[in-house]
């Protein structure tokens, strides 16, 4: 019998028992939904890392001072990660060609009678490059997909020079709202503001920015704050030497582990860290790469993912057994029909094809319903944790494939059983 006729016959037979078929598909529906959810979870974990660590390129290592809990308070685990540690790193570690440094906090800034508490970023000359590369914010009304450049963030003025960044120059860049608030609409460029009682020249004002993600636009205050050269920030805003954040750029992304080992070696010497009795080192700094973050995030998603995979497997097996059961009942009910079909010339393979197609039609409908349920459930799941759940379009063909496979695997035995009936006995069956 031709494929079309086999399919039509199967559809007809399945729709003749709608309720039975629907109940049978339930296991497959749950299984396929779980498959979609599992993949959405893994995909979401990956996307969350991509989004949260976008600024951390795959050729970069983030280095921070380590902290530990002592008497309920967080304190430095050892020596601080100093400005000098960062400055000398490029020289000492040959796999590193650049070490970007930054520091952040909040500070009081005044102009005339206006005074504000704002967040500050102490950064090097690449500060705006970093801001552009983070891509979490963009100028208001920035065309979608257009590449962000550091210049696009500056409304008026210029960025720090590398010399200013190193030489504690008394210059600063004000964010859009901060400039508005301090100068109440007057021109800020070239004026002096007082940051922690030190005068500072405003060399640039940023354009009005907004988060790229529309969901974040109401929450964040991206237009408040100011930028200082990191050397200036350290001198003016801290009583004692602070720890800085370092992002080290590795020359060869294939040698990340090697670069990490070199950095560890370099900082171990600078911080004079000695091995303990067992030869292990207790570092007072932490290194993070995108790969590390991905691993950690996926680890978090893995437990839940595993649970869903188990649910998928169990429901598909249960669903498959349900299909097998219904098909066995169907074969018994239709013994006479099988006899008639054999008598008028159906070959064994025609009978196998007929019943196998029926099983697959049932499982495929379960698959389609399951995919629908899975796709619809993702927005619901996303309201609980947006970062973890992200629909993966590739899960559709996979889920459908799993459903079809379930139909074939569990439909085979009933179909073979039907084809092995003796036509004479089948014709006599009451």
């Amino acid at each position: 019998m031709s494929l079309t006729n086999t399919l039509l016959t199967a559809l007809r037979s399945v729709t003749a028992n709608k309720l039975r078929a629907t109940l049978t598909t339930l296991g497959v529906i749950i299984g396929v939904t779980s498959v979609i959810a599992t993949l959405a979870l893994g995909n979401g974990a990956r996307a969350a890392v991509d989004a949260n660590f976008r600024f951390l390129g795959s050729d970069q290592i983030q280095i921070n001072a380590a902290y530990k809990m002592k008497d309920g308070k967080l304190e430095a685990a050892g020596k601080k990660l100093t400005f000098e540690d960062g400055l000398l790193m490029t020289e000492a570690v040959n796999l590193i060609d650049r070490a970007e440094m930054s520091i952040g906090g909040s500070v009081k800034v005044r102009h005339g009678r206006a005074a504000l508490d704002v967040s500050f970023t102490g950064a090097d000359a690449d500060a705006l490059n970093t801001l552009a590369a983070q891509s979490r914010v963009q100028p208001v009304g920035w065309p979608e997909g257009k590449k962000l450049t550091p210049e696009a963030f500056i409304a008026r003025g210029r960025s720090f020079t590398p010399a200013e960044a190193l030489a504690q120059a008394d210059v600063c860049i004000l964010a859009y709202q901060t400039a508005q608030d301090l100068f109440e609409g007057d021109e800020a460029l070239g004026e002096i503001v007082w940051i922690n009682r030190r005068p500072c020249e405003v060399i640039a004002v940023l354009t009005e920015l907004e988060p790229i993600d529309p969901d974040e636009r109401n929450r964040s205050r991206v237009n408040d704050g100011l930028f200082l050269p990191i050397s200036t920030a350290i001198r003016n805003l801290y009583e004692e030497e602070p720890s800085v954040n370092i992002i080290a750029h590795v020359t060869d992304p294939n040698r990340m582990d090697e670069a990490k080992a070199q950095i560890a070696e370099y900082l171990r010497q600078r911080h004079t860290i000695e091995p303990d009795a067992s030869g292990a080192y207790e570092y007072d700094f932490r290194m993070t790469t995108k790969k590390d973050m991905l691993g950690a995030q996926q680890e978090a998603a893995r437990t839940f993912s595993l649970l869903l995979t188990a649910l998928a497997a169990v429901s598909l097996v249960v669903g498959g057994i349900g299909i097998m059961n219904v098909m066995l009942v169907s074969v018994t009910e239709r013994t006479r029909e099988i006899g008639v079909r054999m008598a008028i010339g159906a070959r064994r393979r025609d009978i196998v094809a007929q019943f196998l197609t029926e099983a697959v039609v049932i499982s495929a409908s379960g698959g389609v319903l399951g995919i629908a349920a899975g796709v619809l459930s993702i927005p619901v799941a996303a309201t609980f944790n947006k970062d973890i759940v992200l629909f993966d379009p590739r899960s559709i063909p996979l889920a459908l494939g799993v459903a079809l496979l379930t139909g074939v695997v569990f439909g085979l035995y009933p179909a073979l059983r039907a084809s092995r009936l003796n036509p004479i006995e089948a014709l006599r069956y009451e």
Partner: protein
Amino acid sequence: MIIETDGLTKVYRMGNTEVRALRGVSLCVQAGEFLALMGPSGSGKSTMMHVLGCLDTPTAGRYCLEGRDISTLSGDEQARIRNTRIGFVFQTFNLLPRLTALENVALPLLYRAASRSELPQVNSRPEPRRRASAAIERVGLAQRAHHHPAELSGGERQRVAIARALVSEPAVILADEPTGNLDSKTGAAIMRLLVELCGEGRTILAVTHDANVASYAHRIVHMQDGQIVE
């Protein structure tokens, strides 16, 4: 000669006892003949019909259909013989309840379409439908072609079954108690239809224990204890 059997023997086991259903049956049926195979139950006439219908293989002996020895064919080859050379008419009609009369009639042709390389003549799509319509018209049921079996009377159902047997232009139509589930008047009409078909050159072999039915045949063969007795 359409059918020629030589010393057909069929032995099968039922539990521990060996049943010799056929004990060397030699039978010849000529083209265009209407033959009745009579005998009481257990005489072996049903087994004979199953062997002749390629639903069963003989334990020993030879069976030639249209001059071709088909006693030792594989399952698929047997299915093809049933599909193309043999038309079955059953006592209980055996129509598929979910299909219309026309679809029931066309069913053998659909199974044939699968092996289109072997039978290119039914390659074109409307062919099965056209032939099924012709067959259903031949048995006088053109008006009822789109009814389901449940909406048809017993006599009409048997006519549909006869149309299904006719549709593949078989070498022989095997009718197993064709009037067994019909009242005498309807049964007589069915027998007259079979006689008409025979008159059109078809070979018909009816298996029955009813002398009335047998009286329509050109020739009656009696079986008893797995052998032909006269």
